[in-house]
């Protein structure tokens, strides 16, 4: 089992690197805030970044393994449909997730 001192140092290392990556870019970008380029990026980026994050969570899905791929595709369809219909984030996430849990525990149990 790892020693307490080592674990504390490990936590501090991971936390410091993470915080640095989150905080330092603001210092670099602050002088550029008024530039039209940053204004453009700040409007165009969020939608794209969110799509990339969504795609990233699906990186291990292999179309060659139907028991993994189908529940994801179907649950994604339910999530998107419910969201386009009711526009309620909480409802769409709950419906899609519940549907996925049911699928992988009943139909696609492979």
């Amino acid at each position, binding site marked *: 089992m790892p020693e307490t001192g080592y674990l504390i140092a490990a936590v501090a290392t991971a936390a410091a690197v993470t*915080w640095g990556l989150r905080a330092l870019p603001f210092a670099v970008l602050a002088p550029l805030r008024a530039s*039209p380029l940053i204004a453009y990026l700040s409007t165009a980026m969020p*939608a794209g*970044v969110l*799509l990339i994050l969504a795609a990233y*969570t699906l990186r291990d899905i292999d179309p060659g393994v139907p028991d993994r791929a189908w529940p994801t595709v179907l649950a*994604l369809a339910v999530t998107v449909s419910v969201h386009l219909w009711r526009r309620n984030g909480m409802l769409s996430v709950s419906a899609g*997730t519940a549907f996925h849990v049911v699928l992988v525990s009943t139909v696609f149990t492979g």
Partner: protein
Amino acid sequence: MATQHDERAAPVPCALTPREERRSDLVDALRDSASVGLGAFPMGVAFGVLVVHSGLEWWWASTFSGVIFAGSLEFLFLGLVLAAAPLASIAVTAFAVNVRHVFYALSFPLHRVRGRLGKAYSTFALTDEAYAVTAGGAGRTFSSRRILGIQAFVHLYWAGGATAGALLGSALPAEVRGLEFAVTALFTVLAIDAVRAGRDVPTPVLALGCALAGRLALPGQMLPAALALFTACLLARYAWTRYTRTPYARTRRGGDHA
């Protein structure tokens, strides 16, 4: 004369008192963060269960999730510390997994957050989820308290989930399968909202293309690769539109060198 420090000073007519305002900010923050919590809490529970099943005390789950506060890194981190990896490899892993956060500074509304302490916490708690909820169109008008509230709630869901998972750890029956889809559903829903707010068709197509390219070209580093490529494409597109027409230079037409 009402002093600036007295919260219960005479209310301004037809406006919320500071106390009511604070409460409504927190209610908004709770609502904004609720769908995020649906993904973060079960993920935290799963992490907590994993920590105690690795033989560590339950409070390490709270410490890891509360202090590092970076979900995807923590699962890797646990494996590294159990193998007694050198601190240098922990630092390199943390850098590789979280380097994507560099891009969040471009659109996260940190300028809305007041106070040095507030800004410090806000950068510390700038997770994917916090970025997702605040960086869209509406987020740019959120109050300082609402942004900090969202971040604190996400922190609470994640660290609270990890603690609960660690405490229940051994008592828990076989875990519910398929719950991890909540994370995918969450990002999908937030992406739909952001796409609809932006009404810009090429950007989502470009983003999905970059995600696919990142997945195929650098499977181990898909996220930083896709984000870097996407940023590069946006820069190129900006330069091109600026060169041909000037639709994005609304305030200053030409002349400046940004």
